[in-house]
């Protein structure tokens, strides 16, 4: 294992985060605070409790997931796309480093950033609403699992993209809508039966449900199903990345 190379990539990527602190950390925190103001205070004041929890408190796990999902994808996709765009990828490809180690460096850094961000948003939420986390270990485990899985997904998008438009396309057109429709701001049980069935096809439902369970012990689906679905997506991402490196898709032409 070339641990020095993993460390070099990881620290290089983390250095970019500190260099671009404003857009990396501050912007998502400001956006999330605005969600609290709009959904928590304005709309929440007109909605009574959801499954025994105040609306403002109820949306906290969904809001954290919303940021962690989008930031994991953005961080990892940009992390690997940028060297492709500038051409510095030549150095990564010519280094004595395995594909697994490359992924570990880039995805590890992207996931770390998202986890830090998730925790910052959690702390920010604590300023707006009272919070009590029933299962902190599960909460952390779910946060890490989601950050890693979607960083892998972002890595795939970064390899696939051959322009900045494509880099934005999937996060904008697919992930954000799925997250909004995945129960960030409501319980799936609040939907009519037909839409409830449709919602169950959305993988983000399982993530948010599982994460929310770790906070309040309330969930749209069972915890084991949530974990199973997230792990399944993780495995799919790993298989796609394995195929990318085996074939050299968009890397070694």
């Amino acid at each position, binding site marked *: 294992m070339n641990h020095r190379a993993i460390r070099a990539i990881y620290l290089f990527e983390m250095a970019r985060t500190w260099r671009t602190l404003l857009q990396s950390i501050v912007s998502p925190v400001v956006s999330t605070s605005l969600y609290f103001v709009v959904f928590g205070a304005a709309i929440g004041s007109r909605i009574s409790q959801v499954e025994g929890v105040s609306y403002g408190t109820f949306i906290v796990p969904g809001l954290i997931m919303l940021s962690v999902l989008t930031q994991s994808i953005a961080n990892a996709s940009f992390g690997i796309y940028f060297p492709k765009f500038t051409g510095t990828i030549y150095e990564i490809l010519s*280094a004595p480093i395995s594909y697994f180690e490359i992924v570990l460096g880039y995805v590890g850094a992207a996931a770390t950033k998202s986890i830090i961000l998730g925790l910052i948003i959690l702390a920010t939420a604590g300023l707006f609403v009272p919070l009590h986390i029933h299962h902190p270990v599960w909460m952390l485990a779910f946060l890490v699992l989601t950050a890693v899985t979607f960083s892998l997904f972002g890595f795939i998008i970064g390899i696939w993209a051959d322009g900045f438009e494509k880099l934005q396309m999937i996060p904008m057109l697919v992930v954000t809508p799925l997250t909004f429709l995945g129960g960030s701001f409501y319980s799936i049980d609040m939907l009519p039966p037909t839409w409830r069935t449709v919602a169950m096809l959305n993988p983000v439902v399982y993530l948010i449900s599982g994460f929310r369970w770790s906070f309040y012990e309330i969930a749209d689906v069972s915890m084991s199903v949530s974990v199973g679905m997230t792990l399944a997506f993780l495995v799919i991402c790993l298989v796609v990345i394995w195929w990318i490196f085996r074939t050299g898709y968009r890397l070694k032409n």
Partner: protein
Amino acid sequence: MSSIISVANLSKTYGSGFKALKNVNLDIKRGEIFALLGPNGAGKTTLISIICGIANPSEGRVLVGGENIQTSYRKARSLIGLVPQELHTDAFESVWATVSFSRGLFGKPKNPDHIEKVLKDLSLWDKKDNKIITLSGGMKRRVMIAKALSHEPQILFLDEPTAGVDVELRKGMWEVVRTLQQSGVTIILTTHYIEEAEEMADRIGVINKGEIVLIEDKATLMQKLGKKRLTLHLQGRLDALPESLGHYELELCDAGATLVYDYDTKGERTGITSLLGDLRTAGIRFNDLDTTQSSLEDIFVDLVRTS
């Protein structure tokens, strides 16, 4: 001298069907400076990319330091430093950070003394804290070389290292390359500047349309393929050549004031002695004469044209 790189039956066909390399066989000797010449699109960069692991070969085998670049890629790649043709740099990183990153990427422990030496050798020490975006093109090129040397490679690939670099800087780089060779580093150089190969290389390979056209010691190549030109400055102008000189391939230049004769140095007979005799017989006298050796550039152009 033993081979440090051995390329056997290497071919590369791109997805579009374009054959960039066709059954290339090449051995690079340990410690030499090898210049790979070829026109644009000849396959130079593709060949380097495959050896360095950036592109996958379609067929064939490459050994670096006796290690297969595919099955034993860690050992093979750790021997190589690559300076690519384009200036691919992390614009917002400092010189020190980007060179240190390269060393870590190749699995080497931190060694600030070595990085300092490399930067000083390349006259980059006073720029070590500058962001790369603020550097000139020539300095960026030297940063690329510093990155390639950061992990103390045994083999250095320089793909068009002096493209767009001014004459003074180019000569400075030649010095750096010579010093590296003296320290035991094998250097493979691709270039469009023929004088660069002529100045630097021990051996020369010519690639054209994906095929190696020639591999030869530079001196032997110059001797084997080099033509010389004899120019005679005549006492009086000639309107036309006399018939008795018709069997020589002579050319009248400068409105009949000079007579030019090209001859092959590798031939047993150059024909100069008999030409001078026949000129005297024909009553043609000259004030002065000079000979010039054809350059590597002439040889290269000839090879590419005929291959």
